[in-house]
C-alpha cells in the first residue's frame, strides 16, 4: 500500500506544473494554433523537470535541505531576497489563478455564482490544509487529479491522425509565425519547469522525512510523477487536436477543455474530466500556497512544515493563511484566471535561473552530499538544461510583448 502511495508527492508536484489552469488552456491553445507541432516541447520539459527534481529531492534526502535553503546559501542575502520576492509574487499570482479555476469548475458543476464559489473554494482549501496531514493532502489531490486519465481514453477514441501526432515529437516548424511558435514553445517549457514544483517537491521530501535510503523513492517520484504529468498534458493536447483542429475551433475558455472527454465518452467522460480538473487545479493551488509558505520560512530560518502542528510552526501557518486571503482578494477583483496564469508562467521563467543554479551548485557540494554528489550524467543533463533555462528566461518576456501574448 505504501508503495502505491509512495509516488503521491511526485504526482502532486507534477500536476501543478503540467495540468494546472494555465496549462489546460495553454496546451489547448498551442494545439489550436500549431496542431501537434509542439508536442516535442512537452517531452523536453518533462526530462528537464525530472533531472532537477531528482537533484533537489536527493539534496533534501541526504542533507535535509529544501530548495530555498540552498537559494539563500548560494545567492547570499541580497540576491536571495530578490529570488524570494519574485517567487512570492509568482506564487501568489498562480495561487489566485488556480482558485479562480477551482471556482470555474465548480460553476460548471453547480451553476452557482462565480464569486460565491471562489469564497467556498478558498474556505474548502483552508479546511483541507488545516485538518489533513501532508500525506493525505498529497494523496487526495495527486490521485484525484488522475481522473484526468480520461483524456487518454478520449484521445484514443477520437482517432487522431497518429502519423501527425508522431511527427509532433520531432522538432519542426511548419508555420510562418515563427515568433508565436517560439512564444508557445517557451511558455510550454516554462510551465513544465515552473519553479514552485521544485519548491514544493523538495520541501515535501523533508516533510516526509526522506533520508539517503529513500533515494530510490525519490527517483521513482521524479520519473513516475512528472512522467504522468507530461503524459496527461500530451493526452489533453492530442484530444484537443483531434476534436478542434478539423473544425477550426479556437478554444479560449476552460469550459471547452472537458468537451474533449465529453464528445467521445458522454456524460461520464465529462464528469471525470471535470473532477480531474477540479483536483488538478486544487492541487496546483496547494502546491503554490505551500511553496509560498515554505519559501519565506526557509529564507528567514523559521520553523516550517505540515509535519509540525500549526502552533509548532506558527509563522509558517500564518504565511499560508495570509497567502490564501491575498489570493481571495486578487481573484475576487474579477481578473481573468487564465490570463493571470499565463502572465505567472511567463514571469516565473525569469526566476528559473535563480532557482535552478543553486540546486545544481548544492547537488555538487561534496561537503555535505558526500557520495551522493551529482554524477556525470546528472551534471551533463543539469548543464544542458541550464542553457535551455537561460534561453527561456531571456526570451520569455520579449516574446510575450512582440507576439501580443501569442495572438500574433
Amino acid at each position, binding site marked *: 500500500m505504501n508503495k502505491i502511495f509512495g509516488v503521491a508527492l511526485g504526482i502532486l508536484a507534477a500536476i501543478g506544473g503540467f495540468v494546472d489552469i494555465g496549462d489546460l488552456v495553454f496546451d489547448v491553445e498551442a494545439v489550436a494554433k500549431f496542431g501537434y507541432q509542439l508536442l516535442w516541447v512537452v517531452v523536453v520539459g518533462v526530462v528537464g523537470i525530472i533531472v532537477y527534481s531528482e537533484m533537489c529531492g536527493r539534496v533534501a534526502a541526504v542533507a535535509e535541505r529544501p530548495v530555498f535553503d540552498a537559494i539563500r*546559501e548560494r545567492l547570499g542575502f541580497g540576491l536571495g531576497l530578490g529570488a524570494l520576492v519574485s517567487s512570492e509574487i509568482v506564487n501568489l499570482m498562480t495561487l489566485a489563478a488556480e482558485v479562480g479555476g477551482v471556482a470555474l469548475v465548480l460553476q460548471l458543476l453547480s451553476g452557482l455564482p462565480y464569486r460565491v464559489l471562489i469564497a467556498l473554494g478558498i474556505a474548502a482549501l483552508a479546511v483541507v490544509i488545516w485538518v489533513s496531514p501532508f500525506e493525505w493532502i498529497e494523496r487526495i489531490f495527486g490521485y484525484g487529479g488522475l481522473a484526468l486519465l480520461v483524456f487518454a481514453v478520449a484521445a484514443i477514441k477520437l482517432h487522431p491522425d497518429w502519423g501527425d501526432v508522431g511527427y509532433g515529437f520531432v522538432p519542426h516548424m511548419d508555420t510562418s509565425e515563427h515568433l508565436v511558435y517560439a512564444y508557445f514553445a517557451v511558455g510550454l517549457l516554462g510551465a513544465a519547469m515552473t519553479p514552485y514544483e521544485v519548491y514544493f517537491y523538495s520541501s515535501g521530501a523533508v516533510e516526509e522525512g526522506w533520508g539517503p535510503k529513500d533515494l530510490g523513492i525519490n527517483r521513482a517520484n521524479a520519473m513516475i510523477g512528472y512522467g504522468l504529468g507530461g503524459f496527461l498534458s500530451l493526452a489533453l493536447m492530442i484530444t484537443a487536436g483531434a476534436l478542434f483542429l478539423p473544425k477550426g475551433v479556437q478554444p479560449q475558455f476552460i469550459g471547452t477543455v472537458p468537451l474533449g472527454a465529453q464528445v467521445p465518452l458522454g456524460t461520464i467522460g465529462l464528469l471525470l474530466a471535470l473532477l480531474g480538473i477540479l483536483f488538478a487545479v486544487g492541487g496546483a493551488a496547494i502546491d503554490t500556497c505551500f511553496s509560498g509558505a515554505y519559501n519565506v520560512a526557509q529564507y528567514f530560518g523559521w520553523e516550517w512544515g505540515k509535519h509540525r502542528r500549526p502552533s509548532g510552526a506558527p509563522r509558517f501557518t500564518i504565511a499560508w493563511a495570509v497567502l490564501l486571503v491575498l489570493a481571495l482578494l486578487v481573484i475576487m477583483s474579477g481578473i481573468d484566471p487564465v490570463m493571470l496564469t499565463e502572465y505567472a508562467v511567463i514571469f516565473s521563467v525569469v526566476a528559473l535561473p535563480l532557482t535552478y543554479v543553486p540546486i545544481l551548485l548544492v547537488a555538487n557540494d561534496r561537503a555535505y552530499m558526500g557520495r551522493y554528489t551529482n554524477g556525470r550524467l546528472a551534471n551533463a543533463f543539469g548543464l544542458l538544461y541550464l542553457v535551455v533555462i537561460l534561453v527561456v528566461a531571456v526570451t520569455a518576456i520579449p516574446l510575450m510583448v512582440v507576439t501580443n501574448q501569442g495572438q500574433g
Partner: protein
Amino acid sequence: MSRPEELDLGLGLLDHQLVDSEGRRCGNVDDLELEGLDGDSPRVTAILVGPPVWRGRGWFGRLAAAVGRGRTVRVPWDEVDKIDAAVHLKKTASELRLGRGDDRARPWIEWLPGA
C-alpha cells in the same frame, strides 16, 4: 562534538539554518562575529542573528533591516554543537533567545481547534 576539519565560512556557515538542541529550526546564520582579523589567528567568536544584522548584507539587506522587527541575538561560538548542512546548537532556542518571532506569533493561532 563534531565539526568539519575545514570549513568555508562563506559557503559552509553563513546563511545556514540554525537548529536547537530539540531539533527546532530557530533562524539562520545572518552574520558572523570575527576576532583577530588584524593578527595571525582570526577566529569566529559568535553567530549573529536578527533583522538589525541584515544591514551589513548589502543594499537589499539594509532595506530588509528597515522593515524587519526584532533584536540582534548573539550566539557564542561555544554554543555550536555540530555543523552539517545546518548549524546545530547545544541549547534550546528559548535558552539562547532565538526563534522569538515564532513565540510571538503562536498566540495568534493557538486558540484555534486542532492547532
